[in-house]
């Protein structure tokens, strides 16, 4: 008598395949399950943060404390933090002519004794580099070091090199940042008189602009620089975004300008939340 393979009842598999497809359809089209997913993310990130900061680090530092190096280590950490803060601060000041859309806000920034009042320094909590290199979802999670941002959603995020993205979710004090290269992200950029919304390509360090030659007949050059236009009021204007890497023909009248970003988000652990309110 022939042996039948176990657990191969077609009915149950068809049922679960249909159920999975239905769930997938709901999530893919309407993001129906974003709430439970965010709740899960929040709990995992908070737990990681707690374990790392309150259990792992004290354990690692314990032998060093025994050797009376506590103050030295603290001083070293503080100095490193201060240097990274200064990098971001310098970036803000170097762009102070156009950093904020409103002139009065710029004056307020310059008048303030502490220039970081408009930029909240935040620490990297998690960055899924696997997704960053393989797939279209380019996200990272940050947590402010000192102050909490009052209205963090949509705020622009910078590091010491330039713009890297914007906050899309507030997960109870941990902010999810969508990078400029995320497939769902769109960045208003310009070069000379040409304006466009540069879409994330899903590839690390690459965003693209599509335009019609019927509307814009001037030629671009490889290496031509693109800056943020400030349209939409989320990103500060005149920040160097990147330069042209390639120009592709995608149809008879449409062209795609491929921009190589100036900023690499994986090089630093500190970021600034630009609060312009």
């Amino acid at each position, binding site marked *: 008598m022939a042996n039948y393979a176990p657990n191969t009842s077609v009915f149950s*598999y068809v049922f679960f395949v249909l159920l999975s497809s239905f769930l997938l359809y709901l999530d893919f089209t309407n993001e129906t399950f974003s709430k439970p997913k965010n709740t899960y993310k929040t709990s995992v990130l908070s737990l990681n943060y707690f374990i790392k900061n309150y259990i792992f680090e004290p354990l690692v530092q314990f032998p060093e404390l025994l050797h009376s190096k506590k103050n030295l280590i603290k001083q070293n950490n503080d100095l490193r933090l201060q240097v990274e803060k200064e990098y971001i601060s310098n970036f803000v000041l170097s762009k102070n002519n156009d950093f904020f859309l409103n002139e009065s806000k710029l004056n307020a920034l310059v008048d303030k004794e502490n220039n970081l009042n408009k930029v909240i320094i935040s620490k990297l909590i998690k960055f899924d580099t696997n997704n960053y290199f393989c797939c279209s979802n380019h996200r990272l999670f940050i947590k402010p070091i000192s102050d909490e941002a009052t209205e963090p959603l949509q705020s622009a995020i910078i590091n010491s090199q330039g713009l890297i993205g914007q906050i899309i979710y507030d997960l109870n004090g941990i902010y999810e940042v969508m990078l400029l290269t995320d497939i769902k992200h769109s960045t208003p950029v310009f070069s000379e008189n040409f304006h466009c919304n540069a879409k994330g390509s899903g590839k690390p360090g690459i965003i693209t602009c599509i335009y019609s030659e019927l509307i814009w007949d001037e030629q671009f050059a490889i290496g031509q620089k693109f800056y943020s236009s400030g349209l939409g009021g989320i990103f500060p204007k005149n920040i160097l975004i990147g330069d042209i890497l390639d120009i592709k023909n995608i149809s008879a009248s449409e062209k795609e300008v491929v921009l190589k970003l100036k900023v690499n988000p994986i090089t630093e652990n500190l970021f600034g939340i630009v609060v312009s309110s």
Partner: protein
Amino acid sequence: MREDSTLKILFLIVLAYNIEVFINPIFMNVNIIIPFSFLTYSYFAYKDKNGFTASSSFLIGLLMDLVTGSYIGLNGLIYCMTTYVINSYKYVFRLFSYLQISIFFGIIASTYVALTHLFVNINNFSYLTLLLTLIGNTIFSFLISIARVYKPIIFKRRGI
């Protein structure tokens, strides 16, 4: 009754996912993606005498959807289909050589990568990546299978 406890399987799959997160960015430089978590699941589905049920594969898939942050149902769907294929060929596998089984795992791993990329990376979908992933996963599976065979011989020779 399952030989390995469900908790152990879940732990190992999640552990494999965490390894995958660190290792895959390196392999991506040569266009190879090795889905360690999926291969771990497939290994347990293959190893289990009675095979996983449709409901357990669906639930493990849902858990992986949460862990990986992909669309809910994506892993559930693929895990269900994979389990069905593995269970259907359960007795046929006995006739296969290690190389044939490795090719089978290479094929299902690249199918997994293809299906996930259809949803999470459609703009950069690459057949080159899929081909190299197929080759990479087949070699990886083969190395794992022969390591199991040759490891005791090496240890015996060294007297360990």
